C-alpha cells in the first residue's frame, strides 16, 4: 500500500473550492509549510480553515488570507498577541471587516472536537467555557455538580500535517513539540495528507513508537526539513 505522491501539487490536486481543511502547527512548530504554499498556488477558494492561529509566524496561511481564499476560520488563538500588531494584520482585518467568518474555541475543546471526529464520537461534555462567550447557545448539563457544555465533533475534509519521518504506508513520527495538533487533525481528516521531512520504506520506523498509525493517513509526500526562526515571530 504505497501512499506516496511525487509532489505536494499532486497530493492536493483534488481539493475543491469550499473544502474544510485542518492545518497542524502550534505557532511555528509542526507547520505543513509545503502543502500550505501549494494550496495558495492552486488558488482554490471559499475554504474553511481549522488551525490554531494565523497571527504569528504563519506566513503560508497569511498568503491564503491575502489571496482571499478563506471564507471561514476555526481557531483557538487566532490573532497576534499584541493589539497594535493585530490592527495591522491582514487576517485580523479580514475578520473585523467580515470577509472571514471566525469561530473560536478553547484549545482543549478545539483539539478534542478533532479527536472525537476521528474517533466516531459525535459529542462530548466539557466544563471548559461555561459562563463565557464560548458557552453561548450551547446546551449546559450538570455532571457531579459541575456545569458542562455539550461540544460536537469537528470532522474536516482534508487535514494537512507535518511529520519528522513517515513511511510509505503513512505511519508518522513527529519531533518534540512539533507533534502538537498534527495527530488529532490526522484523525479528523477524511483525507489526511502528510508532508514528511524524511520518507522511509515500510518497516524502517520502530513499530512500537509510531505517533500516528498509517490508517489515519491517505497521502504522503516528502518535502524535506523547513527552516524557520521561531524567535523572530
Amino acid at each position, binding site marked *: 500500500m504505497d501512499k506516496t505522491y511525487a509532489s505536494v501539487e499532486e497530493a492536493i490536486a483534488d481539493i475543491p473550492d469550499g473544502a474544510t481543511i485542518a492545518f497542524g502547527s502550534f505557532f511555528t512548530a509542526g507547520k505543513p509549510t509545503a502543502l500550505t504554499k501549494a494550496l495558495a498556488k492552486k488558488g482554490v477558494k471559499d475554504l474553511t480553515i481549522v488551525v490554531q492561529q494565523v497571527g504569528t509566524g504563519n506566513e503560508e496561511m497569511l498568503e491564503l488570507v491575502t489571496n482571499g481564499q478563506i471564507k471561514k476560520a476555526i481557531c483557538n488563538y487566532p490573532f497576534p498577541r499584541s493589539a497594535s500588531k493585530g490592527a495591522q494584520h491582514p487576517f485580523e482585518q479580514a475578520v473585523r471587516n467580515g470577509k472571514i467568518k471566525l469561530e473560536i474555541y478553547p484549545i482543549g475543546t478545539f483539539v478534542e472536537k478533532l479527536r472525537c471526529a476521528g474517533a466516531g464520537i459525535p459529542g462530548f461534555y466539557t466544563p471548559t467555557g*461555561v459562563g463565557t462567550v464560548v458557552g453561548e447557545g450551547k446546551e449546559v448539563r450538570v455532571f457531579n455538580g459541575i456545569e458542562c457544555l455539550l461540544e460536537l465533533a469537528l470532522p474536516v475534509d482534508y487535514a494537512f500535517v507535518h511529520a519528522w519521518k513517515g513511511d510509505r504506508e503513512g505511519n508518522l513520527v513527529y519531533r518534540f513539540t512539533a507533534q502538537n495538533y498534527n495527530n488529532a487533525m490526522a484523525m479528523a481528516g477524511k483525507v489526511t495528507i502528510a508532508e514528511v521531512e524524511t520518507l522511509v520504506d515500510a518497516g524502517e520506523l520502530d513499530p512500537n513508537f509510531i*505517533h500516528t498509525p498509517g490508517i489515519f493517513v491517505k497521502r504522503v509526500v516528502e518535502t524535506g526539513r523547513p527552516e524557520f526562526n521561531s*524567535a523572530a515571530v
Partner: protein
Amino acid sequence: MSKMSKVVVPEMPPLEREMIALRIANMLEDGSYVNLGIGIPTLVSNWIEGRDIIIQAEIGMLKCGPLADEGEQDQDRINASCQFVHEMPGCSYFNVETSFAMIRGGRMDVAVLGALQVSAKGDLAGWNNPARGLGKTGNIGGSMDLAVGAAKLIVAMEHFTPGGEPKILDVCNYPLTAKECVDVIVTNYALIEVTPKGLVLKEAIPGITAEDVQKMTAAKLIVADDFHEMEL
C-alpha cells in the same frame, strides 16, 4: 463598587513584575506540576531553578526547562508562547489532546495566569480586553481549560490597569475566562485569597496597610486574622 472611578495610588513603590513572580514561586510546593501562562506568570520560572517543580508547556511538554539561547535553539522545541526552550531530564513530549487531558483532568497542581479582572467570587476575565474591539472573539488559547482544570489557580497581575482602573472588582465586566476559578491573587501590592466568605487580604507589601489595599480594590476585602507584611 465596580463603577468606582480611578483611585489614588499610594506613594509606596509597588512590586516589580519579577517580585510578583518571586512571591508566587515561594508559594509553590516541591513535587508539584505547574503551568505558567503568558506575562508575569512566565517570570515565575526564573525563581524555581534547582527546585523540584515540573513545568508543563501546554503545547505538549513536561519538564520544560529555561529559555534556550541562540546556538542551543531547536525549531521543534518551543513552549506555548513560541519561545525556544530547553528540556530537563525526565522530559516527555506528547500531543495537544493529551496535554489538555492533563489540564482539564485535574493533573495540574497549580496554574498561574495573568488577568485583566478578577471578581469577588473569583471569576476571571483574562482573554479579551474590550478595548481591542474584537467583540466576542479573541485569543482564548489554553486559558479557559487551565482556569477550569487546575487544582489551584493563582492570578499574577498588577493591581491596576495601565489606565489606573482597579482590576479586582465585585463583578467582572470584561468577557470571562471562567467563573469562580481563582484561588489566590498576587498583585504588586497585595496577596488576596478567594474564599467562600469573600476576598481575604492576607499580605500587603511593606509600607502598605490593609486600608490602603481596600482603597485600591473595587470589591470588599476581609482582613485576615494573620494579615502581615509580604516577605520576599
